[in-house]
């Protein structure tokens, strides 16, 4: 059996003690270890991260990685997937990263239904830049850029992804490790764009652990039908990233649709394309 330790690197971990990122890291490592033990070659994994506390995750896992820039995880993933569709492409972003700086890429990834998996470490705060409000901070959030409270209402990324066309929409909680691993594995196994909003306490700037612990419940236990889009929207609306009593986690929606990579590539693999003679094309220009 592959251990979590074997999948680590020599990099010093610089997350704050108590940070929810640790559980996410352990979860993805466990999922990858399980895949490896099942015969999957982990050299086919390409992991992409943005910039923020979340993004350090690629330094802590010994798989292929592309540590990109703030907000631009999805297009980097898309380029990798299109160049070599044989790769399994997994992205990790922060909420500032995915819902703020780079939200257009998130929407387009869902719209295209490109076959890749995207985990958002949603601590509802900018961690690395020391505590400003993000698109999913609660109303009135007092961050360092909004000392009087956030003037914006939070966005609901689950609803956004359902509207945009994602074929796998889920939420996890870093405090529910086993459940999170199940969701992560299902996301990776899904053929199409798989989106998982992972609720993650930021111990230092927005410690939401107790808030979530008391409210989170598993959709799987309530007979939710994941192919039902209307039901998915209903569940998505149950908690709108502010106050609330019940926060559903699990798979909101899952359907199968043609993927962008298959449609666009028509079986071609760019990294294996052979050089063609340009003369016949030039002859048409005479």
């Amino acid at each position, binding site marked *: 059996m592959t251990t979590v330790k074997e999948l680590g*690197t*020599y*990099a010093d971990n610089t997350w704050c003690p108590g940070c929810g990122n640790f559980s996410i890291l352990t979860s993805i490592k466990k999922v990858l270890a399980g895949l490896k033990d099942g015969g999957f*070659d982990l*050299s*086919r*994994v*390409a992991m*992409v991260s943005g*910039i923020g506390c979340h993004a*350090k995750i*690629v*330094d802590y896992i*010994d*798989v*292929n*990685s*592309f*540590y*990109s*820039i703030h907000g*631009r995880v999805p*297009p*980097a*993933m*898309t*380029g*990798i*997937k*299109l*160049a*070599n569709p*044989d*790769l399994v492409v997994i992205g990790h972003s922060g909420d500032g990263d995915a819902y703020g700086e780079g939200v*257009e*890429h998130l929407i*387009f990834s869902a719209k295209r239904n490109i076959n890749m998996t995207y985990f958002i470490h949603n601590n509802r705060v900018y961690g690395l830049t020391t505590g400003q409000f993000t698109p999913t901070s609660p109303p009135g959030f007092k961050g360092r850029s909004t000392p009087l409270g956030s003037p914006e209402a939070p966005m609901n990324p689950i609803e956004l992804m359902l509207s945009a066309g994602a074929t796998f929409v889920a939420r996890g909680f870093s405090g529910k490790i086993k459940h999170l691993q199940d969701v992560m594995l299902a996301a990776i196994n899904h053929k199409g764009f798989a989106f998982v909003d992972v609720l993650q306490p930021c111990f230092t700037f927005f410690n939401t652990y107790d808030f979530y612990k008391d409210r989170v419940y598993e959709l799987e236990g309530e007979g939710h039908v994941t192919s039902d889009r209307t039901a998915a929207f209903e569940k998505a609306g149950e908690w709108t990233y502010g106050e609330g009593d019940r926060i559903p986690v699990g798979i909101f929606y899952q359907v199968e649709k043609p993927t962008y990579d298959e449609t*666009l*590539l028509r079986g*071609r693999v*760019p*990294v294996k*394309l*052979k*050089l*063609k003679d*340009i*003369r*016949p*094309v*030039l*002859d048409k*220009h*005479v």
Partner: protein
Amino acid sequence: MKELSILIGGKAGDGIRQAGQTISILLNRLGYRIFFYDDYPSLIRGGHNFSIIRASEKPIAAHKENVDLIVALNQDAVEKHQNRLNPGGMILYDSDHVEAEGVGIHLNEIVKGLEGKPIMRNTAAIGGLAKALDIEWAVVEDVMKDTVEKEIELNLKIAQTAYNKVEEPFFALQKLEQNMLPLISGNEAISLGAVQAGLNMYIAYPMTPASAILHYLAAHEDDLGVVTVHPESEIGVILMALGAAYAGARTMVGTSGGGFALMTEALSLSGQGEFPVVFVMAQRPGPSTGVPTYTMQGDLLFVVHAGHGEFSKVVVAPGDAEEAFYLTGLAMNLAWKFHIPTFVLSDKHLSESIFSFDADLDKVQPEDALLWDGKGEYKRYLDTKDGISPLAFPGNPAATVKSTSYEHDEYGITTEEPEQIARMQKKRLRKREGLLAELAKNEQVKIYGNPESKTVLLCWGSTKGACVEVAEELGLKVVQPLVLEPLPIEELKQALSGSDKIIDVEVNATGQLAKLISSHGVCVDDMILRFDARPFTVDVLLDRVKEVLS
């Protein structure tokens, strides 16, 4: 010299560019060398468009302001251009729409009578023009069959009716005993150069004047073996390109100034992460949206200096279709040899003009990048003597490939240690030595005209065509750097040595090449600048140079 210039003008939607291209092919089949210039405003219907087709017995890369023939599909074509007619010149016009002195044909009536579509007036015009130039009907028929995509019979009938309406040819155009050459635009030459150097993916967001690269490669995906992608934005474009390069695909992106501005953050990522990528930067007049469908050489300094932080890049600036082909191939090979961003700096005038293309195709070959030998543990950023770390790609069971935007150690893990930081910066910059040596194997500065002349026209990019002809006429020397970063300053100084007057000729308002070389201690004596969004024509430049010399 045997030559002829034809201007064809009409409204947007009249199919002017298409007609101009067909006329170019006609003249090409008679053995002429062609330069085709297209002038159109940024709108889809209405306005006034015109194209100039210049045919010559010798290779040319510029057009002239004055023409021998005007083909007028609207009144503007007469009003705006009749002062361009050379003595003995002639106007051929649609007498249903236009009043002029010259040869009128009822183009509209012909089209209507044969139940054609209004746009087929351009077909009728081609027919009339062919007769006016004394071109055999069989040649016209062949060309139309090769170029008309729909309703060929109807088009032939329309063209032939107009052909027969012109009673007497008024230019007896001689057939030349020269081989025919492919006619391609600068953008097509860039596309083919990239393909020849192993392009796998072309990724772009539409922006004039680079869009035609995307259109061309998308239309020829299967013939050329390229995957094309049109993403959500230029930021999406460049990140996809870097992702694709990381996975091992040879990738090119193309845009103009505004789109490139959006890409600059990721340009710097390609510097830090050592991702190979080729940018085509086709300039148009700025600032901002500027004049979208016209030309300018206004982004040289922007491109040369683009990107935060310090890293190497290459900027090449072709001046005609052959150079576009060779230099794009070079840009692709250098990007992969040195894992750096490289630029093909074009402009509307080069990208969208059409040239007779006479390149030695085999001069461009894909050169393999240095690949990891599979020994020991793979380190993406191995600190080597020449700074080049061998490549491996994800999917290789023996390697873990870690690329990053952060400063990093050899393995690709983030570092903030001072020694490590300095070491990696040195490693990256060390590649420059090899890069300079590699560049030195190529022709980096071109000389034309009279090499003995003490008066030099200094130019770059698409301005070269006009400069060369003016220099030949006046017995001057032309110096054209093909590489602008790293600037081949020694070659440039050599080429300029012995001159007592350097006249800098650029299509911009501030003389950016002059500024660039002045930082190396080379000063120009005069500047001839044009910045009304139009390129230099041979005759206009001739007058400006004479003014400076007098």
